[in-house]
């Protein structure tokens, strides 16, 4: 029973007792008052009755004495005595009245007083008779009336006395009754006091109970705090990625701390390994049995079947303990372990909370470890193939290099790139591509020793490290073996895919002393292997490496050339037969802050290979048109501006639209723009180029065949391509001065052919006066070269235009027509 359930009724009874005691006190007070009344009546009454009787007698005696003499002077003292007795009697009667008694007393008092007054009057007459000396009449009067009045007064006095006695008895009875009530009230008071004491005792007990409860609560709180501390410690171990075995051991110790003699065993599938931990509090026999207990792993996860449960129960019963089994799950609900708590049969109730916390802690620890291991694996491995990633590979390579330095051995780094993987991805889909990569990785691993490392470092790029090699030849052998293994067709989703790989090999210490250098050189070698033909490997060569390194560096820098405003245009004048300015050829220049001035002949091919040519070509077009427009706006008579275009630009379906947009944007007339392209550039995609040229010519743009006579030059193309001009390659011009050369004949033929097709002929690379003279003698329309003008800055070109004689005003250029739809 709760303490308050005892205290409250006792308190109520105590309250009733207090009320009873108050009643008793009131009754006691009444009893005291009545007792006082009784005392007064008893004492005063008895005094009064005695006094009155005496006074009556005294009064009567006094006048009798007065009768004994005739001398009024002697009679008067007796009269005074009688009067004095009268006054005393009146005082006595006043005292009786002062009792303020009830009617039972006041009525006899009134009657006595009346009879007494009657006697007084009679006696007065008697006294008067005595005093006047008429004794006879006095005696007669006394005997006739005085005695009767006196007797009546005495009778009334006795009646009064009797009334007083009756009243005293009644008062006494009331006092007795009041005293009984008082006793009852006091009994209540005593009972109340007892109950109050009892309530206080109970209250004290309750308080003691509360104190005990507080102490128990405090103990539980301390226990909980201790448990929290242990839990925090365990969580700290989890956070700090302490070894799972240590964390599980700490968890397994919790039952023993909570209930002496209890302990726990934890099984967990730490990745692909089954771990178990046992608390130190368990009997040795049980510990040994736990360690020998095996659980099945179902796809890497702990599997607890009925057989295993019975086995655990048997273990516990043999040690005289009771077991409780708690499967451990991760957040997804998958079984990740098993917690078994062994303990005495009477495990404390609060152990339930501990069991729950242990289960949670163990689950968190195991899942956290698994997750951490997984994250650690993912941080160092490729998700798709499971191979180490670049970071782990570099680390292992570093270790291999250190070992090689100690052991004076070699380390080979092989960079593999799948051939035409993009084609597989594009045609068969990314899923197939992923499977292909996975199979490639597996084959790589199968081709390597356990100590070697294969890693995936890019989309279809893999790198292999083989250490402890005796010579570079070993590296070649391994590379050849891998490439051979990779040639075997792969069946992916019903498709038989035949793949191959190109590889580059670098060897420590010949080709680098650090992982980055070795990997870069292997990559360069692979790149070169790709260029020389696929499905092969090349060992890094320093000279090759240097050129490839510069190429890669140029490519890297070129990607930022436009944004860094490193590109510029120079304008080389095109001079007519009468030395008039026929136009300018815009020549691209690149001055890199790191590599310095780089020739277009070097960076343009790289831009084309790196896919940067479209952006660069657009920049050239826009810059040239803006410059020409600016010149025109400055009032200059601007001749045609020739820009060079790559064949890749003509392969771009948006090329014509881009040019049209630039012309509109800049306001430069299409008729003054000429686009030069080499025959070689157009050969790869001639039909598309012809279409693009047709659309551009429709806008009024002129076209020129650049470097005519070299590469894939074909007379047939002169007929096919819709061009306006051919530019004779500088190699022909250079040989014009040779006496025995055939260049003049070829140039004459080209010029004749072009003129027959009504094409303008421009000779490039004119560097001497004689060359110019020969060209002009052969009928060349326009010449350009250092002999005439070096490429000019825009300001110099502007000055040149100002120096030219004004030509007759030509027709105003027509509005630019819309490009024809592709």
């Amino acid at each position, binding site marked *: 029973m709760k303490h308050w359930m005892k205290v409250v009724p006792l308190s109520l009874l105590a309250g009733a007792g207090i009320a009873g005691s108050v009643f008793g006190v009131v009754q006691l007070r009444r009893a005291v008052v009545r007792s006082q009344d009784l005392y007064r009546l008893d004492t005063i009454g008895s005094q009064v009755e005695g006094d009155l009787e005496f006074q009556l007698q005294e009064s009567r005696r006094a006048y009798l004495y007065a009768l004994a003499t005739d001398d009024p*002077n002697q009679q*008067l003292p007796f009269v005074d005595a009688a009067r004095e007795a009268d006054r005393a009697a009146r005082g006595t009667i006043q005292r009786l009245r002062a009792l303020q008694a009830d009617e039972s007393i006041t009525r006899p008092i009134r009657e006595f007083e009346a009879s007494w007054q009657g006697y007084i009057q009679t006696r*007065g007459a008697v006294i008067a008779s005595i005093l006047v000396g008429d004794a006879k009449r006095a005696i007669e009067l006394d005997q006739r009336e005085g005695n009767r009045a006196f007797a009546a007064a005495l009778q009334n006095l006795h009646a009064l006395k009797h009334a007083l006695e009756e009243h005293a008895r009644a008062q006494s009875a009331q006092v007795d009754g009041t005293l009984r009530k008082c006793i009852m009230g006091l009994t209540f008071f005593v009972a109340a006091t007892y109950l109050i004491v009892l309530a206080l005792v109970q209250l004290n007990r309750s308080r003691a109970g509360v104190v005990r409860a507080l102490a128990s609560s405090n103990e539980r709180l301390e226990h909980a705090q201790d448990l929290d501390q242990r839990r925090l410690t365990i969580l700290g171990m989890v956070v700090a990625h302490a070894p799972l075995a240590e964390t599980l051991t700490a968890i397994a110790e919790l039952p023993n701390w909570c209930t002496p003699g209890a302990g726990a065993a934890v099984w967990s599938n730490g990745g692909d390994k089954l771990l178990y931990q046992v608390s130190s509090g368990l009997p040795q026999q049980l510990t040994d049995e736990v360690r020998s207990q095996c659980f099945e792993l179902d796809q890497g996860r702990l599997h607890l079947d009925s057989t295993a449960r019975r086995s655990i129960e048997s273990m516990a019963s043999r040690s005289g303990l009771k077991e409780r089994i708690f499967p451990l799950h991760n957040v997804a609900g998958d079984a990740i372990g098993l917690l078994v708590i062994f303990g005495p049969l009477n495990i404390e109730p609060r152990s339930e909370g501990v069991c729950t916390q242990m289960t949670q802690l163990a689950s968190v620890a195991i899942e956290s470890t698994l997750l951490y291991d997984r994250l650690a694996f993912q941080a160092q491995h490729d998700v798709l193939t499971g191979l180490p990633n670049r970071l782990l590979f570099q680390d292992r390579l570093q270790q291999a290099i250190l070992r090689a330095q100690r052991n004076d051995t070699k380390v080979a780094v092989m960079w593999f790139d799948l051939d035409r993987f993009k084609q597989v991805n594009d045609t068969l889909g990314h899923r197939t591509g992923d499977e292909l990569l996975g199979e490639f990785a597996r084959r790589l691993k199968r081709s390597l020793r356990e100590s070697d490392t294969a890693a995936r470092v890019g989309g279809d790029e893999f790198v292999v490290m083989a250490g402890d090699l005796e010579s570079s030849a070993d590296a070649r052998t391994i590379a050849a073996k891998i490439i051979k293994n990779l040639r075997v067709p792969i069946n992916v989703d019903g498709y038989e895919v035949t793949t191959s790989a190109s590889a580059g090999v670098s060897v420590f210490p010949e080709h680098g002393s650090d992982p980055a250098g070795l990997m870069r050189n292997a990559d360069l070698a692979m790149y070169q292997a790709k260029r020389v033909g696929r499905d092969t490997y090349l060992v890094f060569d320093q000279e090759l490496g240097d050129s490839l390194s510069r190429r890669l560096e140029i490519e890297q820098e070129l990607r930022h050339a436009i944004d860094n405003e490193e590109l510029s245009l120079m304008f080389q004048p095109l001079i007519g037969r009468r030395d008039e300015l026929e136009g300018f050829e815009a020549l691209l220049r690149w001055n890199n802050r790191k590599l310095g001035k780089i020739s277009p002949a070097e960076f343009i091919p790289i831009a084309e290979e790196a896919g940067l040519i479209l952006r660069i070509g657009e920049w050239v077009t826009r810059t040239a048109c803006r410059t020409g427009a600016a010149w025109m706006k400055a009032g200059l008579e601007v001749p045609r501006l020739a820009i060079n275009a790559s064949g890749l630009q003509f392969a771009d379906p948006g090329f014509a639209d881009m040019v049209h947009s630039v012309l509109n944007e800049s306001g430069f007339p299409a008729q003054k723009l000429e686009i030069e392209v080499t025959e070689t550039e157009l050969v790869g995609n001639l039909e598309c180029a012809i279409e693009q040229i047709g659309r551009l010519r429709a806008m009024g743009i002129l076209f020129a065949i650049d470097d005519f006579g070299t590469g894939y030059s074909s007379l047939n193309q002169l007929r096919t391509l819709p061009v306006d001009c051919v530019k004779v390659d500088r190699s022909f011009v250079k040989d014009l001065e040779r006496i025995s050369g055939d260049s003049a004949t070829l140039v004459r033929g080209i010029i004749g052919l072009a003129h027959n097709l009504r094409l303008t002929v421009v000779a490039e690379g004119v560097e001497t006066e004689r060359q110019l003279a020969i060209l002009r003698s052969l009928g060349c329309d326009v010449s350009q070269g250092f002999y005439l003008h070096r490429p000019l800055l825009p300001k110099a070109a502007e000055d040149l235009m100002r120096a030219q004689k004004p030509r007759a005003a030509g027709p105003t250029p027509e509005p630019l027509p819309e490009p024809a739809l592709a």
Partner: protein
Amino acid sequence: MKTTIHLHCGVFVSLLCSAASPTPAQPFAVVVDPSNPTVNLSSVDLRAMFTGSVTHWPNQSRIVLAHRENGSRPNRFLMDRLLKTSWPDYKRRLENLEFMGQEPVIVRVLASDAAACKFVFNVPGALALIESGSIAEPECRELRLLRIDGLAPGQEGYRLK
């Protein structure tokens, strides 16, 4: 009325003349018991009462004369100034009246003014002549002081002095 007050002009004049002569200054007072309804007496009536000529009060109650003893100032004043007689003559006169068949005059001689007052207090119809200075005594306080000819002791024209 059986008894009447007889005014005797000669005596009265004589009384007034003697009262006008130089005497001790202390006046005398006439007191009756409180139940007596009379509040005022004429000098003639007063003399008649003391001489026995009038024996009853107007309410028919018997007049009782409370005399001071012979030789006392009130008695001398009564004898010498009011009744013009001597104590023995006075006593004889009263005895003669009884002898002649008249209703006897009740006379009681008291030893002091206080006794006289006490006597008057206890005897209805009693009348006493005392010194006015005794009025303040306890025995006399409860008595009624009669006016004489409408005047109280101390007033101008009061004759009992």
